């Protein structure tokens, strides 16, 4: 065996080990404990490192959850180009800033999908019942939108444009910037804060019942428990709406919020890593359950920046006042049939935008 072959085999073995570590279901790492015995997941964590990894695995990477070598190099290069295109597009429209402002820049995750189960990295097919529901949803959406323009009112804009929220679990997934979550623990509660858009979930650990079904909230109602070293968070009571802009999770479409139950898991798998998983187990919607996973990395930060979105939302003023000026200059706009996104348009849900 030549020296070069030995080196190659060693590199390959390391790569395989790395993939095994990444995808391992039962980590052997024993996390530090807080004085009251709970695993310590306190601090600021970022999903930046997963930026650019597609939610579902592209066809060309079938059976390759992790890339390496030249293939990885090309993949990262393509991803950067795609990101630059997106950033330039967004920046050109809203003045959101140059490419290098975005924290997704230079991230090198070798994963080919955030979905880890099923093993093909794809969301399983929807049930016939769910497809029918989706068609109905689309019909209701079309009736509701009618011939409204894209900026007749703030209500024609997305929830993120309006600084209302980034959805659960979308808020945990990497976007252009501000992908940080802070966790604070007490013996009776866990607080999960998200920088974007200054979200706070204060989650009781005492096993109390969920809120009354009469109380529906943007971020629902969360309860949590420790299952060994894993914090399991169960959220219900999401707001009830057929508006796809209010889609309450990453790829949640087709599911009615009344029955919607999100399971999130937080496991500290190394000193600097919390593995974050969401599982959708909804036999009325998908033919099998599926799980997406992010590795959240410890940030040296002691706090989150204050993301005062609504306070400085001059973008909304400009969008609305600009539309009124356009109508004045071109009255035909007032009578045109609006072209609106259908609720099945994936771009509406793209957490990267």
């Amino acid at each position: 065996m030549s020296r070069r072959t030995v080196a190659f085999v060693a590199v390959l073995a390391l790569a395989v080990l790395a993939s095994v570590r990444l995808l391992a279901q039962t980590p052997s790492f024993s996390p530090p404990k807080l004085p009251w015995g709970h695993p310590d997941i306190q601090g600021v964590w970022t999903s930046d490192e997963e930026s650019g990894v597609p939610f579902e695995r592209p066809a060309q990477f079938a059976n390759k959850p992790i890339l390496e070598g030249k293939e990885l190099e090309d993949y990262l290069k393509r991803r950067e180009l795609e990101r630059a295109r997106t950033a330039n597009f967004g920046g050109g429209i809203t003045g959101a800033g140059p490419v290098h402002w975005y924290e997704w820049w230079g991230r090198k995750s070798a994963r080919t999908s955030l979905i880890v189960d099923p093993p093909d990295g794809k969301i399983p097919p929807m049930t016939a019942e769910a497809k029918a529901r989706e068609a109905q949803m689309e019909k209701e959406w079309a009736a509701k939108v009618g011939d409204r323009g894209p900026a007749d009112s703030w209500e024609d804009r997305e929830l993120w444009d309006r600084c209302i929220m980034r959805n659960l679990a979308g808020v945990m997934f990497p976007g252009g910037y501000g992908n940080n979550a802070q966790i604070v623990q007490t013996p009776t509660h866990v607080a999960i804060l998200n920088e974007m858009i200054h979200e706070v979930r204060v989650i009781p650990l005492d096993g109390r019942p969920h809120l009354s079904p009469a109380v529906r909230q943007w971020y629902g109602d969360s309860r949590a428990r420790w299952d060994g070293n894993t914090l399991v968070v169960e959220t219900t009571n999401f707001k009830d709406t057929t508006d796809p802009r209010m889609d309450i999770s990453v790829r949640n479409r087709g599911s009615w919020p009344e029955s919607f139950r999100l399971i999130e898991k937080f496991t500290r798998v190394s000193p600097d890593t919390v593995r974050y998983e969401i599982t959708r187990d909804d036999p009325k919607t998908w033919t099998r359950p599926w799980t997406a996973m992010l590795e959240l990395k410890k940030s040296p930060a002691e706090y989150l920046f204050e993301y005062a979105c609504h306070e400085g939302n001059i973008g909304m003023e400009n969008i609305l006042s600009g539309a009124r000026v356009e109508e004045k200059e071109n009255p035909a706009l007032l009578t045109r049939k609006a072209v609106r996104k259908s609720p099945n348009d994936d771009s509406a849900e793209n957490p990267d935008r």
Partner: protein
Amino acid sequence: MRNKLHAAGCCVAVSLAVTVLTMSAALAQVGGPEYKAPRTSWGDGKPDLNGIWQAMSPANWDLEDHASYGAPSSVLAVTGTVGASPGGYGVVDGGKIPYKPEALAQRKQNFENRWTTDPELKCWAPGIPRATYLPYPFQILQSTTKILMTYEFAKSSRTIHMDKKVPAPVPQYMGQSNGRWEGDTLVVEVTDFREETWFDRAGNYHSDELRVTERFTPSSPYHMMYEATIQDPKVFTGPWKITVPLYRRVERNLQLLEFNCVPFSEDLIYGQWKRR
């Protein structure tokens, strides 16, 4: 004559208010300095402030002594009684906020325009100390190295650094909070504010040179005293202090609910640009 009587009645009311104020200040001391708060369950020896708290105070309407007052008639035409503010004894030590003369004019203007410019109407982060005495509950999550205070209003929050002094990255609506224990009192130094927040609905305000020193002192199992000393050399002639009791909410299984008020403020803020 009627005016004179009215004026006299007003003075009686004020002196009555002052008496009540003195009495309530005295009452607030019940429990007092000899009260020893329960400690945290994990044995670090610190007083345990964990829980949901709320002020029951007229402070958010006006920090100073004030009679009840209504809104402009255009507002009352829509809101009726809800647009009126209850009277209340002030929470400022010494009764008056020591404004610089030139700053008083701004305060007056704020008061006149309060139905369009009060940041509370706009669902902005309320700032400190106002977040503490808004008529909404807030929760203290006291942990090993940080204390998180999270407020129901506008889902705002702040982290109080207890383990090390952490400088502010940028000026913030909620400021930057560094804390320490002085006996049973949690002392928080809040700095690095932006200038946009107000102290109350009456237009009391500050500049970006605001500094707040807060003291949370447990006084009984069910209440603690909140004192905030306010300094801002651009707006005030010297430091001044407010004192507001905070009460523990004791309802079973209580939790903060979402008050994501953005949708409640958009008509006010963007209504002028809606397509007619």
